[in-house]
């Protein structure tokens, strides 16, 4: 065991058992998976992506490139999870990745010996030809050799939630700067949200000690948290990562609600995706330590120096027994002191500088460490774990020093990612030896290490001031904030350190990119950082180059001779850390992918055994099969036969219904439709077509005038929303002077189409006594308001889609189901059957009525045979452009009916129409088939189509070819109405 006594923020009274690669271990509450592995002496955590080199634990946070695991088993298995971010729980199971057959013995590690096989640009150069080898050979082989972890193969059993949050001040990060900001803003009464990725607040205070206001830093963090929790307007959100910054103060965050438990509580989601809207943001996301590029810097046992302090002080674990500290500046010396104070042997300190502050000599002496001033690491030794390093002295002399821990202090990169999501570019700061935030998103302030202020005292002061300013800006003024007092650590920030002569010096540990790869990219001309990134895949792994990204750019800068400011960084885009797709999808998956709209009588249709289909968000009945019917065609043949001889009822509640009230309703309708409505008498219904302003048909439907100033307009189901928006545009923007108000009542009314010679008796059977439906009083295209079911308002329209005498009856939605049940009872004597969309559609093709195939956005009213409706006496939407020469060209494809010459032939929608003797080639194309149906009434297939010259070609025979489905038939061109063109049946 490497657990230290008498320190740390782990609960020794709460041991937790867990498994890694099947082996049982014990950790403590407060551990991460990484700290628990280290406490159990596990140092080999995974194998690398390309070379399968053994890798250990590099960091103690979300920047981890090496220790990626598959977490949990079965349906909850999740790949590529940094062990350094996993909060340990009892029963946790994790497995290492990229190893076969086992972590310790990995066959693919031989690729490590064949390094030149995988140089930069490898994919582009090697797998170019022949293309068919990709699927069969290259890709499977590469995936097996180089894949990351495996995703679960079963459906995710967990729920994900989505929520919105509004606040005055969003504080991101809970280290010294973040806590100071939240306190300052909270004390002024602002609504503050504090987001922290970790489960424990405090950031580096938990690792680095120090004193704030005379308290140990970790205790100060506890006191600050307690004060914040007591503020009613402050919301603390631990385990919540702000991953993206969006326009106008919008932030994306994911809260890991249940990831620290074996599985979510029954009433809890696994994760919750927050959209946070904040007037002001304070970014206090700290900094991430950089790797140093030397030979063998990926050996298990190499660890970031700040992470070493985190393991020692927070988790009471030592990552090694004998350490070498490699430092580019003063920060590594804090690790020397920390190691020594925990009694860990420090064999050597390799400081890049030939001369260093005097005080370090004393620290080295008390730690018993040999100091190599101006030295560097020439290489590391060890297989799956470090056992020594070669130190190259300033003189060039090499010394081999035994050690199992190599702490590297290569300076810190401010966590600038969130400042870049709206296009801000980081700028190079010579003072901070790092890229610091450039132009900030509006409303955001950056404080502490995130802006390159690495001292504790500076972080507290900047945080407190920014918190107070943010509160002030949102209307919460007050006196100057109390600034918690602490000293800044001595010393200047460390510069980037690249040992340019090194071999196998990694700048991207997760994607196995080395200094040699950067050199290849340079040699081959991929020098700009964005090209470098794509050519070498540097910084493109799941860690997005958090520890090595800047190193690679510095390596390129060294080769090009440009400075870091000129070299710049690649663009940072959301998310800051990976976000589970499930969290983004939230509840919208499976049957809840989108809302489901139920019609008022859907329960009745389902009870009748209707076969349902999705139409937009609706579920509608297709047909109502009966026992013994061989197939759907048998069913609709029966349904249509029953309608044409008796009566049928179909629910049509999904039609768009817009109610208009006001003296100018008629004038608005005249402006919307090609034909005139203002002349329509009360109690009558009229069919109309509306165009878009570009002259093409938008929708068709009927409009009824129920009272002098009350109208009801119907739209097709699919266009209901668009027509309503169009009408609102026209009224609000173009004709605001018209005195009319309208609203969608689509959901307010249940509506049924009752068709067939006996339909009048069926309607009469549900209306209250006294309604006069006699043809003289209620002829074709009449409408009226009655009552049904004993006093329920009922609107009746005598309109027909089927060509039969037909009525539509609408009652308030809540009475829809009762109405249809009553109709089925009283209608039984008249042969009433239920029918669905398929019969509806077949009968409309028999009558040549328009559907979605005809009003397809490319047809005009003229194309569809409604030129006579286009009024020449008024202005209307689309009138001007409908007169364009191209739209009135008589050669345009226009609506025709189609009948197969061979009456046994089947027609197919989408077939192209060509002259009878022309070859099936696009230059002979004259149109296409828009709708087809088998007509049980006629006993053969019929169709509608758009054909050049249209109506002038009645009687001609053309070819309907559908090479995709292998159909090629001769069809006769006929008028689009196949049944009762005089309309004798619908008048009764």
């Amino acid at each position, binding site marked *: 065991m490497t657990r230290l006594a008498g320190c740390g923020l782990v609960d020794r009274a709460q041991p937790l058992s867990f498994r890694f690669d099947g082996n049982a271990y014990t950790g403590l509450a407060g551990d991460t998976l990484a700290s628990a592995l280290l406490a159990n002496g596990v140092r080999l955590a995974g194998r690398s992506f390309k070379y399968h080199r053994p890798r250990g634990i590099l960091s103690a946070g979300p920047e981890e490139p090496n220790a990626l695991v598959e977490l949990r088993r079965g349906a909850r298995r999740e790949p590529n999870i940094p062990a350094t971010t996993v909060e340990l729980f009892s029963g946790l199971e994790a497995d290492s990745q990229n190893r076969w057959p086992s972590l310790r013995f990995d066959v693919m590690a031989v690729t490590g010996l064949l390094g030149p096989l995988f140089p930069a640009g490898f994919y582009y150069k090697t797998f170019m030809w022949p293309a068919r080898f990709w699927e069969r050979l290259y890709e499977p082989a590469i995936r097996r050799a180089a894949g990351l972890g495996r995703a679960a193969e079963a459906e995710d059993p967990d729920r994900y939630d989505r929520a*919105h949050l509004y606040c005055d001040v969003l504080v991101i990060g809970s280290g010294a700067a973040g806590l100071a900001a939240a306190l300052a803003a909270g004390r002024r009464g602002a609504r503050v949200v504090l987001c922290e990725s970790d489960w424990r607040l405090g950031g580096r205070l938990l690792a680095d000690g120090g004193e704030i206001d005379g308290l140990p830093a970790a205790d100060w963090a506890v006191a600050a948290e307690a004060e914040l929790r007591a503020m009613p307007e402050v919301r603390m959100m631990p385990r919540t990562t702000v991953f993206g910054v*969006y*326009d*106008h*103060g*919008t932030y994306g965050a994911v809260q890991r609600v249940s990831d620290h438990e074996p599985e979510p509580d029954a009433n809890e989601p696994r994760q919750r995706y927050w*959209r946070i*809207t904040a007037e002001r943001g304070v970014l206090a996301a700290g900094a991430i330590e950089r790797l140093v590029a030397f030979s063998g810097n990926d050996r298990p046992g190499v660890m970031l120096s700040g992470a070493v302090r985190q393991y020692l002080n927070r988790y009471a674990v030592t990552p090694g027994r004998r350490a070498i500290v490699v430092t580019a500046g003063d920060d590594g010396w804090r690790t020397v002191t920390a190691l020594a104070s925990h009694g860990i042997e420090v064999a050597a300190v390799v400081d890049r500088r030939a001369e260093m502050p005097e005080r370090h000599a004393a620290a080295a002496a008390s730690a018993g460490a040999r100091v190599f001033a101006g030295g560097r690491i020439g290489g590391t030794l060890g297989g799956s774990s470090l056992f020594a390093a070669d130190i190259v002295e300033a003189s060039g002399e090499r010394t081999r020093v035994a050690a199992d821990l190599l702490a590297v202090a290569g300076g810190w990169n401010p966590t600038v990612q969130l400042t870049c999501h709206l296009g801000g570019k980081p700028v190079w700061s010579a003072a901070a030896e790092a890229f610091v935030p450039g132009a900030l998103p*509006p409303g955001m302030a950056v404080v502490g290490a995130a802006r390159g202020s690495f001292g504790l005292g500076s972080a507290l002061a900047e945080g407190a001031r920014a918190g107070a300013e943010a509160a002030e800006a949102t209307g919460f003024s007050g006196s100057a904030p109390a600034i918690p007092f602490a000293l800044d650590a001595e010393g200047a920030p460390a510069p980037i350190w690249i040992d340019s002569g090194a071999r196998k010096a990694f700048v991207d540990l997760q994607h196995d990119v080395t200094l040699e790869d950067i050199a290849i990219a340079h040699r081959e001309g991929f020098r700009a950082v964005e090209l470098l990134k794509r050519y070498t895949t540097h910084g493109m792994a799941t860690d997005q180059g958090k520890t090595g990204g800047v190193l690679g750019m510095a390596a390129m800068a060294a080769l090009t001779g440009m400075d870091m400011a000129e070299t710049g960084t690649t663009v940072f885009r959301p998310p800051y850390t990976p976000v589970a797709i499930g969290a983004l999808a939230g509840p919208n998956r499976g049957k809840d992918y989108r809302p489901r709209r139920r019609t008022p009588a859907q329960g009745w249709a389902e009870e009748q055994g209707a076969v349902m289909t999705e139409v937009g968000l609706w579920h509608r009945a297709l047909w109502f099969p009966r026992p013994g019917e061989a197939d759907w065609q048998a069913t609709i043949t029966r349904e249509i036969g029953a309608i044409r001889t008796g009566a049928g009822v179909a629910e049509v509640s999904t039609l768009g219904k817009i109610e208009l009230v006001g003296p100018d309703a008629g004038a608005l309708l005249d402006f919307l439709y090609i034909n005139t409505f203002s002349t329509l008498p009360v109690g009558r219904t009229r069919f109309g077509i509306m165009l878009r*302003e*570009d002259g093409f048909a938008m929708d068709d439907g009927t409009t009824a005038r129920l009272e002098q100033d009350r109208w009801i307009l119907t739209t097709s189901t699919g266009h209901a929303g668009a027509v309503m*928006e169009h009408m*609102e*545009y026209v009224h*609000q*923007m*173009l004709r*605001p002077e018209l005195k009319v108000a309208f609203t969608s009542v689509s959901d307010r009314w249940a509506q049924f189409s009752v068709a067939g010679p006996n339909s009048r008796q069926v309607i009469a059977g549900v209306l209250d006594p006294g309604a006069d439906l006699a043809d003289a009083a209620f002829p074709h295209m009449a409408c009226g308001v009655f009552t049904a079911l004993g006093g329920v308002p009922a609107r009746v329209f005598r309109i027909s889609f089927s060509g039969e005498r037909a009525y539509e009856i609408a009652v308030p939605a809540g009475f829809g189901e009762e109405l249809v049940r009553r109709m089925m009872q009283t209608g039984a004597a008249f042969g009433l059957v239920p029918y669905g969309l398929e019969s509806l559609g077949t009968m409309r093709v028999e009558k040549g009525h328009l559907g979605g195939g005809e009003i397809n956005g490319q047809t005009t009213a003229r194309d569809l045979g409604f030129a006579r409706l286009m009024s020449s006496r008024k*202005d209307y939407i689309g*009138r*001007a*452009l409908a*007169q*364009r020469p191209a739209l009135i060209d008589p050669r345009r494809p226009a609506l025709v009916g189609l009948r197969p010459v061979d009456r046994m032939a089947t027609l197919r929608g989408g077939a192209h129409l060509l002259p009878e003797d022309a070859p099936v080639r696009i230059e002979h194309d004259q149109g296409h088939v828009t709708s087809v149906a088998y007509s049980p009434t006629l006993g053969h297939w019929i169709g509608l189509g758009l054909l050049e010259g249209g109506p002038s070609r009645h009687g001609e025979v053309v070819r309907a070819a559908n090479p995709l489905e292998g159909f090629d038939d001769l069809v006769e061109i006929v008028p689009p109405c196949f049944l009762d063109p005089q309309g004798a049946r619908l008048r009764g």
Partner: protein
Amino acid sequence: MRLPCPHCGSRPADEFTCYGAADPVRPAAGAPAQVWHDYVHIRPNPYGLHNELWQHVHGCRRWLVMTRDTRTHAVLGARDGGSRGGGAA
């Protein structure tokens, strides 16, 4: 992204639908074909300030004219579209 509705206040962008340039004015019925063509088909695509038509579909359902900077997404103002030429909110 958030948008200011003169009737409902600052609301998330998903409540609105954008319909592009707001400046074209519908010509008189007898205007020349070219004028109609330009009204229907020609739209500016400026790098900078842009007057846009938005409808607050999941809100008050009013059509609005917003001035947005296409370079930054900053929304500089919004008024009810029905108040074209006066009475800005």
